[in-house]
């Protein structure tokens, strides 16, 4: 009988991750004998480990792991090795993946994303101005840390640029970004640029500046290039100047095909980064696709 593929999602409830999962299912449609089974751990690493156990128990032939901010789950890696099935990590590469079984990572490069936004913002502002950074979540958030560090690094060449990191977290969502930004707006009168660890928070932050009547004073940059962001950037007079590509749809599709290839015995390198470059305001329409989930 056919091929069973398991997709273990840490979290399905955000468009970015949902889009990745949907893309896998869509690609699998084309094959009549491929069944894709998805699980959702509701942002809980322990539940994710359990889901992977369940998928292996169900006899999947290969796994796609979308682990969000989870650094690694050694017990899940052990279970995968024991089961001896190929695995593709999408978006997030786990640590210590020196696996016996075939494995591959597909995703965007967070440091690249941070760096290109940083470089662009530096240019745009002429190497001067007060920049606010809004972080998504706490200390175990290495994706965000990588983006922020690369962004800060990129600005370090301009001594006239001052960076303030907001004390609160934006929680990766519009509502969180709005809230953090509101407090920061009240406190700082001289913000020239805002960098957020993802797009959603920046959309909220931009709305907050808008509501405060200060939207014109500053520019926004983030990463992910989700469709809401692209649409906002396409708007006339939008001050959302740049985002970086982190195409969850493409990651999902590529991940699926990499897994299919490995199942067929093809060999490919473990690390296969996708394009993570800059999207500027006037290019946004090129990437915008209203039919995508993200």
């Amino acid at each position, binding site marked *: 009988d056919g091929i069973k593929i398991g997709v273990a999602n840490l979290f*399905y*409830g*955000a*468009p970015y991750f*949902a889009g990745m999962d949907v893309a896998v299912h869509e690609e699998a449609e084309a094959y009549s004998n491929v069944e894709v089974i998805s699980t959702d751990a509701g942002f809980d690493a322990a539940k994710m480990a359990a889901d992977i156990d369940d998928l292996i128990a169900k006899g999947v032939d290969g796994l796609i792991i979308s682990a969000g901010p989870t650094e690694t789950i050694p017990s899940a890696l052990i279970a995968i090795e024991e089961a001896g099935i190929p695995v593709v990590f999408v978006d997030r590469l786990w640590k210590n993946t020196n696996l016996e079984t075939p494995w591959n990572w597909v995703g965007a490069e967070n440091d690249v994303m941070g760096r290109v936004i940083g470089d662009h913002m530096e240019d745009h502002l002429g190497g001067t101005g007060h920049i606010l950074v809004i972080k998504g979540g*706490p200390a175990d958030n290495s994706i965000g840390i990588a983006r922020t560090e690369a962004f800060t690094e990129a600005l370090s060449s301009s001594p006239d640029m001052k960076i303030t990191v*907001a*004390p*609160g*977290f934006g929680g990766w*969502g*519009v*509502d969180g970004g*709005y*809230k*953090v930004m*509101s*407090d*920061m*707006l*009240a*406190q700082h009168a001289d913000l020239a640029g805002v960098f957020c660890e993802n797009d*959603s928070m920046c*959309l*909220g932050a931009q*709305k907050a500046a*808008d*509501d*405060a009547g200060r939207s014109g004073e500053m520019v926004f940059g983030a990463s992910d290039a989700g469709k*809401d962001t692209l*649409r*906002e950037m396409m*708007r006339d007079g939008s001050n959302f100047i740049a985002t970086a590509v982190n195409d969850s749809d493409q990651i999902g599709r590529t991940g699926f095909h990499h897994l299919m290839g490995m199942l067929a015995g093809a060999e490919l390198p473990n690390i296969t980064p996708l394009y993570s470059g800059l999207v500027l305001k006037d290019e946004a329409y090129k990437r915008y696709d209203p039919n995508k*989930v993200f």
Partner: protein
Amino acid sequence: MSRAAKANILFGVGVVVLIIVTALMQEVFLTERNMVNVARQMVTTGLLSIGMYVVIRSGGIDLSVGSTVAFAGLLAAGLQETMPVGAAIAIALSVGVVVGLINGVLIAYMRLQPFIVTLAMMGAVRGALFIYSETPTYATDKFFLKTLGAGKIFGVVPVTFAIFLACIPVVWFFMNHTRSGRSIMAIGMNPETVRLAGVNVRAQTTLAYVICGFFAALAGVLLAARLGISQPSVGVAYELDAIAAVVIGGGILGGGGGTVGGMFGGVIALALIDNVLNLFNVQSYYQQIVKGVIILIAVLLRRKPDS
């Protein structure tokens, strides 16, 4: 003067001291901009607290409000693309009423525990809204709701805040000056006594949850309007802030304590804590600890006297 009144005054004094100290140390605190900001931030918790207050006074609890916020916001934002705005909002609000009705019927008529019923509903509503939102995010430029969300009355008072403010006396009147409200309060003290007094306890209890669902939906609509976008993952754990606000304001889980004024004070206090900690640049982790300690101090001021 009653002990509760004393506690309210003590509490009010505490809030005023907090305001004065912050104002002296942080110039921006009392600026119009920051005040508008604080006012706006308290709207969601505030509306949820109003509904939570009614439910807590009835002796119950409602954990499903956070999910209702997300669902109602999503519906209002999603539907207004294809139908008149008024209709979209009406549908969004009635979803809150329906969720409240289900909660109420299961609790009042099936006699299940409020905590577990609303916990199950929290999950179920969240699941349902994800199913509804196949494409999860809505935002349009024409999104009328932006007007509602960003608008200001006299150029100063945010519309959302004005709506919240307007709801306060309405609920105060309902709870203190109508038969229904007094019955709900009495049910929280001893439902059997109220039943024996000929009141339809089940209907009144259900009403409390319906009110709570309605305010949760209203909070969701206004939040979507404010953000100009709606996301299915919004509203997680919002119920906890609402419960905290009610309890800080003197409410007692299980019924029998707390005033609308106290609840309002609790909402203000929570909003101020967040704002002040941010203004003082307290880092997020420390914020959580400080916030916990402040909540404990607030409820310590109100604890029952030694017996």
